[in-house]
């Protein structure tokens, strides 16, 4: 398809006509090569792969082949991913050198290149399509349905797949109240962390006094280890935009903002393009599809501050100020951005809206658990075999997510914990793996849903070190406005620094618990209130590790430097000299052909010898 001139759509019927026209222009026989160019695959050279396919398609005269860049498929572990239609043949780990063979065999010859298919390591079964791969089998995709299928830079692709028809239906035949009721029936709860019922938030904002109202999409996905929102904004920006237009219609807002994290350049590019294309068709702007609803969206890039994911801090940032939160005794739905009623929802929440309006609230509510409806996207990462993005119905057990979809712990190590909810979440140990995942269950375990990061930890992970990591992260990101957060986190980090150096004192655990309770009760915003959760949950489930650090000055996982030493196993040492050559402080001695040893007085425990030794002769004791 060449660049088309986009004419303003004046009615809902125009949209239907356009959709039929796009479909009509498509050659149903045409083959299609879809290359994932999400950040993960792009980092491994997917863009070059796409260009080669594009070139091959342009040079080919015998067959008509469409080449498409798509967003993230989720199976980032095995990227770059290339899918060939018809048939949905899915190739993993594709390299530039493979393009020619795929073109010759699969595109032209309808044969499968077996070596590029995914093989299930446990059953050795070769999988041709996504449906056959265990990673995808148990997933249910509502939000991610378009990811990996649609070209995020072409609005026509989205429209052809039924995009914006929910909006057309809403403005044509639904009153704002009907939209609200439908969302209410769906039971949708905010996907950003809090889990507040979306319809209630919308209704409060609509009922709030004031003529000018705003809606905001929170794309400041700051939780380390989480990239759901990034993948949605990159891979299917129009579903977020459509959700916002519908929400604005229900609320009565004329202006919307998408606040995107600065570290996500591709998301900004795709959203900017998508907004411009939607404007050309009149899907944004005055009198959308001939209705009385007028609405536009502006995209703002964040400045790189974690606290700006908090709603009031985000609004301060949108006003061109320092991102400091304020107390919320007056809710932002009544007085938010520029002191006007403002509704703020997370990217994934907005992305659910078109499907809810299209299929009905009851359909959405049929998925999930009693109080948590629908699906949830998780970024399954850490020491798990299949790193990637997964979307599962609420209520699936942690065990199924980690073992069935994630393929279990990497390298045959033992599972220790899964951390959910980002820096404000907690660590859930093995004994609770059979817990169904929903908002309430995770809270009960002392963690939370958060935005959906799920970080798997194995036996080599030190839980004290992880808690320290999160406290350091939050201390650095604390805005400094309220004392409990500013001073409390500094004190906690101080204690952690001592413990991990082997200078822990009796009573440290109690002090940490006390400080945690103080933060929860006295901090100003959610960042501070929940900052101690990683500490409290690791103390709750892994108290013995803390005790070993404090009482025996020992780190059982051998992570905390100072609480273990490096030694060379004389039997395994081949005297190759690599460790000696690489040691930055000349702490390794040994003659040629003699096993080497480490001079402990000189060793700074940097771990270079451990990493470099080709024979695993350097050991931690």
């Amino acid at each position, binding site marked *: 398809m060449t660049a088309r001139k986009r004419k303003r759509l004046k009615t809902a019927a125009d949209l239907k006509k356009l959709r039929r026209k796009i479909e009509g222009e498509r050659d149903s026989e045409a083959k299609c090569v879809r290359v994932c160019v999400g*950040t*993960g695959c*792009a*980092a*491994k050279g997917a863009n070059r792969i796409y260009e080669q396919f594009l070139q091959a398609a342009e040079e080919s005269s015998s067959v008509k082949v469409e080449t498409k860049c798509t967003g993230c498929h989720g199976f*980032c*572990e095995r*990227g770059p991913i290339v899918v060939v239609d018809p048939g949905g043949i899915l190739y993993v780990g594709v390299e530039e050198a493979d393009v020619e063979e795929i073109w010759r065999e699969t595109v032209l010859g309808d044969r499968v290149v077996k070596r590029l298919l995914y093989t299930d390591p446990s059953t050795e079964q070769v999988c041709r399509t996504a449906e056959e791969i265990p990673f995808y089998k148990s997933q249910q995709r509502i939000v991610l349905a378009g990811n990996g299928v649609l070209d995020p830079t072409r609005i026509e692709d989205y429209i052809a797949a039924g995009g914006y028809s929910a909006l057309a239906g809403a403005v044509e035949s639904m009153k704002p109240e009907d939209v609200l009721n439908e969302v209410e029936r769906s039971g949708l709860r905010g996907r950003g962390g809090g889990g507040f019922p979306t319809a209630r938030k919308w209704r409060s904002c609509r009922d709030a006094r004031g003529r000018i109202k705003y809606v905001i999409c929170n794309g400041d*996905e*700051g*939780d*380390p*280890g*989480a*990239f759901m929102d*990034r993948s949605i904004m990159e891979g299917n920006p129009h579903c977020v935009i459509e959700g916002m237009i519908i929400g604005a219609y229900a609320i009565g807002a004329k202006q919307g903002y998408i606040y995107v994290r*600065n*570290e*996500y350049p591709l998301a900004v590019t795709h959203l900017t393009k998508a907004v411009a294309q939607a404007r050309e068709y009149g899907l944004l702007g005055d009198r959308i599809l001939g209705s009385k609803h007028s609405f536009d969206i502006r995209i*703002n*890039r*964040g*400045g*790189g*501050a*974690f606290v700006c994911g908090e709603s009031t801090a985000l609004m301060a*940032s*949108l*006003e*061109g*100020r*320092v*991102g400091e939160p304020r107390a919320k005794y007056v809710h932002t739905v009544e007085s938010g951005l*520029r002191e006007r009623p403002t509704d703020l929802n997370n990217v994934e929440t907005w992305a659910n809206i078109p499907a809810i309006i299209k299929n009905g609230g009851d359909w959405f509510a049929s998925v999930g658990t009693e109080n948590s409806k629908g699906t949830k996207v998780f*970024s399954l*990462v*850490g*020491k798990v075999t299949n*790193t*990637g993005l997964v979307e599962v119905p609420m209520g699936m057990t942690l065990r199924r997510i980690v073992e069935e979809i994630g393929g279990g712990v990497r390298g045959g190590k033992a599972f220790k914990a899964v*951390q959910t909810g980002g820096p404000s979440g907690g660590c859930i140990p093995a004994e609770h793996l059979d817990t169904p995942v929903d908002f309430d269950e995770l809270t009960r375990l002392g963690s939370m849903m958060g935005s959906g*990061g799920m*970080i798997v*930890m194995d036996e080599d*992970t030190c839980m004290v070190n*992880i808690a320290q*990591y*999160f406290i350091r*992260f939050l201390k650095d*990101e604390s*805005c400094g406005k309220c004392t409990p957060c500013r001073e409390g986190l500094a004190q906690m980090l101080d204690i952690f620094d001592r413990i991990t150096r082997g200078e822990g004192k009796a009573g440290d655990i109690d002090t940490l618990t006390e400080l945690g309770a103080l933060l929860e009760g006295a901090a100003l915003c959610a960042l501070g209130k929940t900052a101690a959760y990683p500490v409290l949950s690791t103390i709750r489930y892994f108290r013995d590790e803390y005790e070993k650090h404090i009482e025996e000055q020992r780190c059982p996982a051998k992570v905390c430097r100072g609480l273990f030493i490096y030694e060379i196993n004389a039997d395994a040492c081949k005297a190759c000299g690599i460790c000696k*050559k*690489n040691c*930055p402080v000349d702490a390794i001695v040994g003659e040629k052909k003699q096993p080497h040893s480490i001079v402990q007085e000189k060793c700074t425990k*940097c*771990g*270079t010898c451990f*990493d*470099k030794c080709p024979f695993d002769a350097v050991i931690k004791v």
Partner: protein
Amino acid sequence: MPEGAEVVREIVERYERDDGMLIPMMQDLQAEFGHLPPDRLRDLAFCLEIPLTRIYGVATFYSSFRLAPKGQHEVTLCVGTVCHLKGAGEISEAICREFDVEAGGTTPDRLFSFQPVNCVGACALAPVMIVDGKYYDGVTPASALEILQGLPAEGEESQSEDES
């Protein structure tokens, strides 16, 4: 310098002199000059008729703003949870030690600016290092140093100890 002031005026006009758009203005300014030169911030305060302290407050609060010129190359190291689990801390230490640079600083020879960031959202690639926009996956302390030692420099370069 009238030329620099002209750039500032143009950026301010781009956003219709709305001081609510201060952050995008400063982002544009940084894109233009590579950092935020003090003189241009003064121009910005003058154009918008707002106190310079507010601009400095914003410039120092958000980690993406830089008040000093950056190095020839830009090195970003992800230190998000997954990268941390997989050893990003050691990589950061190795870089700081080898190149005599602080996190957030620039090497003495201005070869590169080193910025550890909290997760770039590419966890499947962990640990990740980004050099001038190019992503490197599965980085180790040794491979990180190798990549950085291979960076083309204009002036003299530090001693190299590649083995492979």
